[in-house]
């Protein structure tokens, strides 16, 4: 199932940030989003994940297919690594968490409370959550933040395995992951600023 985005126009806090974005994400394909800070990459990913409605245009093919990874990992510090992961596995209705633990080299940390992990280890746990969702389209927002070089390789391998299994990935990142991926620079799609000629405009 491929994800179709056509003529998408998105806003953050009521102000349009990006417009005219169109692309298609087919199974086995990875799309890397690039662009300067504040251009609206996170807003774009949130819109595609269905967390906020677009101003215009359509996103289709993503219903119940998307697993979304945000800036924060959504971990509970009082729960152990396996408890965190098992929770997401049962929310998404999948069973096995072992492949995910193994792929991100977390087996040695399995009984450690998430609160006692380092920033990079937390990130690895957050990324391993994507594997237990069992969903074909991964939408990830700066997944490599606070990861070391070895962990970035682990992550790139996981994405590669996901792609070869027929999944697809949409990743906003600033670093080179070494993936065979299409790159979309969202910089040129910056929305024209609104004309503030009415009274309401003064509040935006």
């Amino acid at each position, binding site marked *: 199932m491929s994800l179709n985005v056509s003529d998408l126009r998105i806003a953050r806090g009521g102000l349009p940030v990006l417009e005219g974005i169109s692309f298609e994400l087919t199974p086995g394909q990875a799309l890397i989003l690039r662009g300067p800070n504040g251009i609206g990459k996170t807003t774009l990913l949130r819109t595609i*994940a*269905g*967390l*906020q*409605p677009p101003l215009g245009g359509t996103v289709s093919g993503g219903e*119940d297919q*998307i*697993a*979304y*990874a*945000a*800036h*924060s*990992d*959504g*971990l*509970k*510090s*009082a*729960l152990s690594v396996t*408890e965190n992961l*098992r*929770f*997401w596995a*049962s*929310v*998404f*209705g999948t069973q096995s968490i072992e492949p995910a633990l193994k792929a991100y080299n977390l087996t040695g940390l399995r009984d450690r409370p998430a609160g006692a992990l380092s920033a990079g280890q937390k990130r690895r746990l957050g990324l391993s*959550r994507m594997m237990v*969702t069992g969903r074909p389209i991964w939408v990830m927002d700066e997944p490599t933040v606070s990861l070391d070089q070895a962990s970035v390789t682990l992550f790139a391998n996981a994405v590669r395995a996901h792609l070869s299994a027929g999944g697809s990935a949409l990743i906003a990142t600033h670093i080179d992951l070494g993936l065979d991926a299409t790159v979309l620079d969202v910089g040129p799609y910056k929305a024209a600023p609104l004309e503030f000629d009415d009274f309401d405009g003064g509040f935006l």
Partner: protein
Amino acid sequence: MIALLMRDLRLAVRAGGGFGLGLAFFLIVTVMVPFSVGPESDLLARIAPGVLWLGALLSCLLSLDRLLALDWEDGSLDLLATAPLPLEAVVSIKALAHWITTGLPLVLAAPVLGVLLNLPLAGFKWVVISLLLGTPALSVIGTFGAALTVGLKRGGLLLSLLVMPLYVPTLIFGAEAARRGAMGMAVETPLLMLAGISAGVIALMPFASAAVLRINLR
């Protein structure tokens, strides 16, 4: 859904989970009231059902700002919103977990604390029954308030102000049922009204909570 409930219950009883906060507050309120109104056992017996109800309501209110705010802060609310669970189910389960960790202990503690307030013997049964019927409404309405204020830092003040008026009907009919029971009068009317309020908010409030949560997550 059961996984979410189990996770919330587990988090509540682990370190820093805040389990027992409401119960401790309830204990403090009911222990302090006899000191503040003086040693008049007749007066205490008369106000005991109302004090127990007020104490339960305030204890419930105390724990509301953690209900969704913690999940918001660590990002799991965003992830839950993109999970296969509908948000209506998420807020219902959250309310249920809140009731189990806050409301149910209050119901169980009320008869014990009733002794401290010289609650008439006939009143024990009705205090427990009215709290059992009323506290689910407090949790569900509170979840709505928590959903309204979820994006705000230190939203506790606004949350209390928003939720207070919504709690009034539950408090009126709950305390009235308990008072009538303690006086040996007929309790059917306030008890039915209380049950009606609870049934109504349990059925309708999750939709409202999920709707405001969707807006807050944008």
